[in-house]
């Protein structure tokens, strides 16, 4: 019993490390010497991946290890562009007849219909997708935990207000809400160039995606806390005079809810990647001039490449961003499922 609990906590910490691993990688951009920066980047990424995968193998969690192998290279690639910006550009080739080039020595993955190098576009787009997914997951987790705690409040008014807010985001189809938010923002920024910067727009979209994902976390927390409050050990602790705050924060949230929360967060990360790429895809197709403009993400790259997918021509354009999205979602699903299995063993 004790071993399985420790194993689960170890896995949870590992997942936390995985999601926080872009931070030390991003810090490398402050290393002045570029050669050292390259060495350090390669060493940090490989050692992090090795530690994460080996710890999963030691913990006999094959699913988590497989998920890490699929997901980690994507995360590492997504941070490359911010550390070595001068190597990655999404410049459009102006020579029309030179636009679609198959993979060759210069363009390893070829170029797309607008003449952009696919490798560069995929790395830049992956960076944007991961940043958006990371911010959205953070927003959803923080606000979801807050809403979940309020949902089990003893104060009826607080409970009703929290429940109403969660229900609104539960019932509002996420794509409708996001298209409304992004559509209004894009149309306003088209009218006035100075209306909104790229950072503000990213923050607004991440907030909108996070808000639409709040119910996922809030309902989980509500269900878990309500069931835990009925358990004998909680009643015993309260009867023996331990403060309510300590029991709630330490015994309920930290010791019992946190592992489930982390498991849900890993599923949520995959969901936000789906939502973000679907939104970009939709905006690119459905909004025409009011679409994303020069913004690159895997969703926009796939929307640009739709002709090649439909007609089966120049398939290399759609292949790499497609693999990126699928591997990310599959990786997060496998990690979440692996954690769920370990949790089952613990129970």
């Amino acid at each position, binding site marked *: 019993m004790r071993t399985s609990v420790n194993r689960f906590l170890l896995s949870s910490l590992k997942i936390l490390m995985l999601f926080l691993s872009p931070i030390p990688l991003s810090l490398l951009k402050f290393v002045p010497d570029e050669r050292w920066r390259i060495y350090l980047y390669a060493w940090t990424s490989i050692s992090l991946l090795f530690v994460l995968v080996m710890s999963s193998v030691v913990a006999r969690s094959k699913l988590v290890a497989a998920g890490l192998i699929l997901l980690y290279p994507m995360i590492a690639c997504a941070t490359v562009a911010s550390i070595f910006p001068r190597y990655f550009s999404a410049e459009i080739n102006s020579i029309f007849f030179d636009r679609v080039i198959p993979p060759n020595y210069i363009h390893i993955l070829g170029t797309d219909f607008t003449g952009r190098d696919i490798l560069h576009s995929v790395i830049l787009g992956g960076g944007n997708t991961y940043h958006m997914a990371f911010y959205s997951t953070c927003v959803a987790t923080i606000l979801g935990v807050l809403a979940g705690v309020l949902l089990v409040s003893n104060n009826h008014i607080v409970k009703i207000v929290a429940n*109403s807010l969660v229900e609104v985001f*539960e019932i509002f189809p996420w794509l409708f809400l996001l298209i409304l938010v992004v559509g209004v923002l894009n149309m306003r920024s088209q009218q006035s160039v100075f209306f909104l910067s790229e950072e503000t727009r990213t923050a607004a979209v991440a907030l909108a995606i996070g808000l639409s994902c709040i119910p996922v976390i809030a309902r989980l927390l509500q269900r878990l806390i309500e069931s835990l409050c009925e358990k004998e050990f909680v009643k015993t602790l309260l009867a023996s005079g331990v403060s309510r705050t300590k029991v709630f924060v330490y015994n309920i949230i930290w010791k019992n809810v946190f592992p489930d929360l982390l498991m849900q967060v890993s599923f949520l990360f995959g969901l936000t990647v*789906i939502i973000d790429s679907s939104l970009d*895809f939709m905006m690119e197709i459905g909004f025409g001039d009011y679409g994303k403009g020069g913004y690159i993400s895997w969703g926009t790259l796939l929307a640009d490449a739709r002709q090649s997918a439909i007609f089966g021509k120049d398939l290399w354009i*759609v292949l790499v961003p497609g693999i990126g*999205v699928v591997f990310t979602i599959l990786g997060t*699903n496998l990690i979440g499922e692996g954690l769920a299995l370990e949790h089952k063993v613990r129970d």
Partner: protein
Amino acid sequence: MLKRTEASSSYLTLLKFICLRFLVKTLFLFLLTTFITYTLLSYLPASDNEAITFSYADWLTNLIETQDFGYSDFHIGQTVISRILVGTRTTILVSTITLLLSSLIGTGFALFLYSPQNLLWQGPKFRMRRLLRIPLWSTIYVVSSFPVYLLGYFLFYAFHSDVNLLFALLCCVFGSGLALEMFRNVSFVYRSELAKPYIQNALALGLRTTNWIPGVGSVAWHAFRNVIPIILPLFSSKLPFILSSVFLIEIMFEMPGLSDSFLSGLLNRDAHMVLAIIALSVLFIQIVSFLSELIAFLLNPDKSSL
């Protein structure tokens, strides 16, 4: 006799409570979602910096007085309902079929993979199920990792057909992990039910186990009957997600659904159109949710104890 009268009275009270809660909740959510939409739309720019020429109260009053969503701001002289009637039918049809199909697939997979089996009987069916478990599990995971639009691409490429209801449904059911989500939910609830003491007792006493699907009278059948009231509301709670997927698919497959009206309404600053689509979506989701709750209540084996 007295007991039966009391039971039916409390049964009716609970039914009334469910209906009343549905009405209050629907009204509240209708007002809140349309108000959020109106607030967002009021930020839409227009040539004279005033995209919306009416107040929310006016829109609501008009809706109550005429029971109509008003006239389109872009298609002058046409009512919003006449513009979106066909689209609403298509979207509701595709969403409902997707909900039913994904629920059936998720439930089928969960029952097939997790139903208790006769471990003493090592026949070919048992071996087949053991062999099928990993490929089935892997297939549903891999296929569900494709977002809706990417799955649509594959179908386009594989069959070279752009308007096909079956493809659209397949994309909606498997894309974005909908069937997987259903499978995960059902298997979690089903396995929790199977772990309960009454099932363990029944297995220990030698009640019939199952081979492929839970046959009537078997242990798995009893567990499944008790699981239905829990999973039905879970299915209906996925409807907003399904509507979003259907929205994407309608654009990809150029189906005459609500998505086209919604996008053109937003691009042309047609606030009446956008508000009507949001309102109809919320009503549709609420009605399905109410129906699922009602069916779950009627199927609940515990209701006889009321």
